């Protein structure tokens, strides 16, 4: 019988889980298990065969599989235990502070594992057609962009020949190029919003390079075809994002790809009873990336959807270090009686959320990155941090967009200078 007790179990073997496990090991933790539901480690990076990953982490441009391999190597070099093809069914809390992980796979059958700490690294999934309310039948030929990406890059199938893409998220843009290179004709990319959620680089190199039009403020209003998609109607939308009658244009196509947003995958987190954010759809965490359940940490796209894997790796390493520190103090009564300081991060001026949502300044070592997103495109602004109502630091931003995560670095020194702070407040203000 395999062992069933660990100090740390990491759920998910994608970029977040791999970086978290390696960082926990490097912080001195040795009893670690990573659980991955796919048959390989690396998560979504396996199908992201385009380049542009790792500029921040490795100062070179890697493809997704190459980036993943660097972290898989870290796991194997450290001989960290992992199980593939293993689906976690539920998480539970025990009275002694440990957690129970119930999982299942083909070799072990049902696994009931116990651990002192947990790192949630389950990633996210794509929004599907069901959440869009597009009228029509349910013919074959409608795929999420990520599904099409998997079919082309991993399974080796081309899902269609004449393609319309709804949504201009990065995966949709990447797939516009990928399908074109594989011989399909991509007719148009329609985006509901007046701006694209994708990176400029992808708009230029995936659409412009191949003459694929991007129609902003447009959406699909009808899908034609009963067995297979035969065409779609695209209409312009007004400022209320409702289709404008009379603007419909018909496209003959056999495939519709949807790139309409990502949702953190948190069924396990909710089952565990962790407090959730309605904005990010991820758990609410503090400066240690600890959820409202003690000893349970979260990082990567399960916490909030990222644009760059480099930031996922960095965030996850932080969660790994925090989990290692928690395990060291586990069962130590002194640690338990320590009074919890929870200063909420208040924000305004167009910021939608911050991660973390709470800060205990005494638990920050070296520095703390506060990450956030704004709700609309903004120009010539500054981000100002107020501590107890006094401006403590400020950063100019020429442009901010919802598609690009922002960050503010709070140094240990800054936090120590304000040890007895009562409020932390981040505001976006006009930069005169």
């Amino acid at each position, binding site marked *: 019988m395999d062992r069933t007790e660990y100090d740390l179990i990491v759920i998910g073997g994608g970029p977040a889980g791999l970086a978290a496990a390696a960082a926990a090991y490097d912080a001195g933790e040795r009893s670690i298990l990573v659980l991955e539901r796919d048959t390989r480690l690396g998560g979504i990076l396996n199908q992201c*065969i385009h380049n542009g990953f790792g500029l921040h982490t490795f100062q070179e441009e890697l493809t997704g599989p190459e980036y993943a391999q660097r972290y898989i190597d870290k796991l194997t070099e450290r001989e960290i235990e992992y199980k593939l093809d293993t689906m976690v069914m539920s998480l539970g809390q025990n009275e002694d502070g440990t957690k129970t992980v119930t999982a299942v796979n083909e070799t072990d059958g049902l696994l009931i594992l116990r651990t002192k700490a947990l790192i949630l690294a389950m990633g996210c999934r794509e929004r599907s057609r069901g959440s869009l309310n597009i009228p029509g039948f349910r013919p074959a030929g409608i795929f999420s962009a990520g599904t099409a990406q998997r079919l082309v*890059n*991993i399974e080796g199938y081309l899902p269609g020949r004449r393609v319309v893409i709804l949504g201009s998220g990065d995966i949709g843009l990447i797939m516009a190029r990928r399908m074109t290179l594989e011989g399909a004709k991509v007719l148009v990319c329609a985006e509901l919003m007046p701006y694209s959620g994708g990176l400029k680089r992808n708009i230029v*190199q995936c659409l*412009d390079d191949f003459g694929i039009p991007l129609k902003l403020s447009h959406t699909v209003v009808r899908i034609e075809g009963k067995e297979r998609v035969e065409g779609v109607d695209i209409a312009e939308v007004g400022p209320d994002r409702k289709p404008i009658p009379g603007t419909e244009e018909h496209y003959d196509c056999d495939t519709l790809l949807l790139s309409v947003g990502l949702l953190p995958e948190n069924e396990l987190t909710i089952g565990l009873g962790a407090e959730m954010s309605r904005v990010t759809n991820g758990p609410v965490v503090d400066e240690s990336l600890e959820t409202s359940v003690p000893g349970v940490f979260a990082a990567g796209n399960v916490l909030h959807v990222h644009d760059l894997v480099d930031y996922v790796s960095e965030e996850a390493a932080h969660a790994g270090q925090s989990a290692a520190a928690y395990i060291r103090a586990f069962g130590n009564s002194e640690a338990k009686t320590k009074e919890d300081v929870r200063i909420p991060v208040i924000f305004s001026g167009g910021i939608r959320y911050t991660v973390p949502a709470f800060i205990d300044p005494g638990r920050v070592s070296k520095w703390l990155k506060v990450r956030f997103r704004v709700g609309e495109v903004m120009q010539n602004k500054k981000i100002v941090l107020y501590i107890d109502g006094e401006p403590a630091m400020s950063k100019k931003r020429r442009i901010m967009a919802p598609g690009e995560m922002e960050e503010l670095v709070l140094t240990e020194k800054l936090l120590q200078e304000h040890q007895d702070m009562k409020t932390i407040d981040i505001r976006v203000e006009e930069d005169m």
Partner: protein
Amino acid sequence: MNTVELTCINCPLGCRIEVMMNDAGGIELVTGNSCHRGDIYARKEVTAPTRIVTSSVRVYGSRDGERMVPVKTASDVPKGKIMDVIRDLAGVSVPCPVRIGDVLMKDIAGTGVDMIATKNVD
């Protein structure tokens, strides 16, 4: 004299840059950029645009049941050669095992650049 329009890729601002070219193909004027990086990008993009090309090719004999291995050009190739590179990859099938960095095709489409594997497949 003709004008080439570009979208700068350096930041989310996405400046619309106009490059005025003389009949000899030389750059006369770069306008619309709001920083130096835009100027550098525009000059490169109108004179010698390049891209890394990524794709995937079939593998056979995979112990793990993999069907495809992802590949990339070992360095940038001229933008105009992208489709030639892709055409050269059509029908290619390589034996396992494959390691990251293995050269799967030399001098693809006459670019002088090799096509290398970007994933380990056993």
